[in-house]
């Protein structure tokens, strides 16, 4: 069924096809209210993350301690209250969007680049290369992700970079599988054959014919992965394997506040909500995209 849509739009010229496909997807995406809300929230969070350093000064507002004002309940001056070192939680949560999003995005980027490359090679070339790649993928995929993450961070040492590496590594296998499956569906299409017939290089065929046509499941996967990486980062923070302090990454805030979960619940509430809203938004966008990209689900 997937193949049908691809081949039907094929006779049309490439540029036009792309635009119309995009417009069609966007039209379907727009119908999904949840996804639209999600998209809006994602944009807001990205906006905050990008301009966080314009809004607040890292040294004086985000990380500087003020013991005299520690553990202040939420009030006008400190909207979300202050933490055990007297730092404003509102500012830290806003600034934390930068740390959290970059952890999620960087980890996903690693998974995407490595996974897509391997998946492409496996799907396109097949044979022994495919076998090797897919077995390796099975190996990495069969170890529960969170345990793999724990093992990697324990081995490499606690740092933000190693956290990103660990989360990235664990997401490779899913990108390999998805890319390969998508490549398999398009690799024997006529336009690929045509490219081969006119003597285009393999790289050119892969980049200009195959990849553009299997991007949709990959894009969906990217949005979902960013979300799950943010949650996974908070899990590793709980085990003491998260980002380095005093970075206000949400998982670290949530984990640091957990001893006060009964006496000062606001210390975990706001970072927790931030994670929740972000992860929900990314998931709504991902689900919306999936539906929009997969015409099978629409009447």
């Amino acid at each position, binding site marked *: 069924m997937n193949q049908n849509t691809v081949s039907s739009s094929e006779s049309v010229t490439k540029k036009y096809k792309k635009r119309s496909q995009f417009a069609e997807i966007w039209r379907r995406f727009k*119908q999904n209210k949840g996804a639209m809300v999600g998209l809006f929230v994602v944009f807001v969070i990205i906006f905050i993350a990008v301009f966080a350093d314009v809004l607040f000064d890292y040294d004086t507002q985000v990380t500087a301690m003020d013991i005299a004002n520690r553990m202040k309940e939420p009030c006008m001056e400190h909207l979300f209250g202050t933490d055990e070192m007297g730092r404003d939680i509102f500012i830290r949560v806003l600034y934390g969007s930068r740390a959290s999003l970059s952890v999620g995005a960087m980890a996903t980027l690693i998974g995407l680049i490595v996974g897509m490359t391997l998946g492409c090679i496996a799907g396109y070339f097949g044979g022994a290369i495919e076998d090797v790649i897919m077995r390796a993928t099975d190996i990495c995929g069969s*170890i529960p992700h969170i*345990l793999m993450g724990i093992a990697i961070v324990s081995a490499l040492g606690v740092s933000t970079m190693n956290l990103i590496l660990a989360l990235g590594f664990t997401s490779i296998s899913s990108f390999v*599988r998805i890319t390969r499956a998508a490549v398999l569906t398009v690799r024997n299409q006529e336009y690929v054959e045509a490219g081969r017939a006119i003597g285009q290089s393999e790289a050119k065929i892969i980049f200009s014919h195959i990849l553009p046509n299997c991007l949709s499941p990959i894009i969906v996967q990217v949005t979902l992965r960013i979300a799950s990486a943010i949650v996974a980062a908070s*899990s590793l923070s709980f085990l003491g394997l998260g980002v380095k302090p005093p970075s206000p990454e949400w998982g670290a805030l*949530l984990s640091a506040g957990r001893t006060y979960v009964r006496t000062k619940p606001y210390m975990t509430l706001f970072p927790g909500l931030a994670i*929740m809203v972000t992860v929900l938004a990314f*998931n*709504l966008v991902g689900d919306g995209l999936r539906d929009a990209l997969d015409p099978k689900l629409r009447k």
Partner: protein
Amino acid sequence: MWRYCLRRILQLIPIIIGVSFLIYFLMDIAPGDIVLLKMGDNNMTAEQIEALYEQYGLNQPLPVRYLKYMGRLLQGDLGISQATGEPVMDMFMARIGSTARLAIASVLVSIIISIPLGIISAVHDGTVIDNVASFGTLLGLSIPNFWLGLVLIIVFSLKLGWLPSNGDDGTIKSLILPAITIGTSLTAALGRTTRSSMLDVIHQDYLRTVRAKGASEKIVIWKHALKNAMIPILTVAGEQFAGVLGGSALTETVFAWPGTGRLLIDSINGRDVTTVTGLLILKTLIGSVIILIVDLLYAAVDPRVRARFANSGRRKKK
């Protein structure tokens, strides 16, 4: 069919070799080792340290140790924990019961929440109800597990006093909170699958026939449609079960649950290479076997799938 099973089981061999090597390697590059940990603050002589390394078999290079380990593994021996001196298999068996019960309960929670929501969402496809139901299945996924666990403990154990806050006393009561904590994080995938597979089925011709025969919409959906949409749902549930069996370490920590996940985390922290490798091999094995069983059940239910098993060279999981 038997050939298919055999092939799937044979495929496990390279996976296990790979998993064990990966873990062995990771644990080797991790800073510190069991001897340094045992040493603690002691100022030992070089000979004493040497003797300890020999006692734990750590004085040899990584490839030699790994090959020795694999040699034992081939004979079905998972080795002895370096930290406690107990056979890894015994330690695993002592804890797998708790973990398995938690996994079953968690998947049940996930099924109870996500199948109705997924169906509602499919039936009301594209409406506000669909959005709300989908949103409902996503909620659990987006709350970090340990936080949800702590909040549940505070509300249901402390404030209401209904349920125990920690540990496994073998009763269903002690299962509820940890199962909800894990189960709600699984609803997103299961709800999504339910929704899409129901959508697939709902508009098919035979349902139209059933409707034409005058069956109520309820019966159409819950009896006829759900039955046919069940296969992918069960597949995902099976995979989730395998997943929880392998990786519920965090929830086990929050609820002080005596399962394999906590043992694994402790073993990683204690640089107990034999236990970590052994546990992960067992988890991989069990996970793969469960997925195989689900696939076989699938084949038993669906003749189309059975036919594919009989003649396909390799089956891809999607």
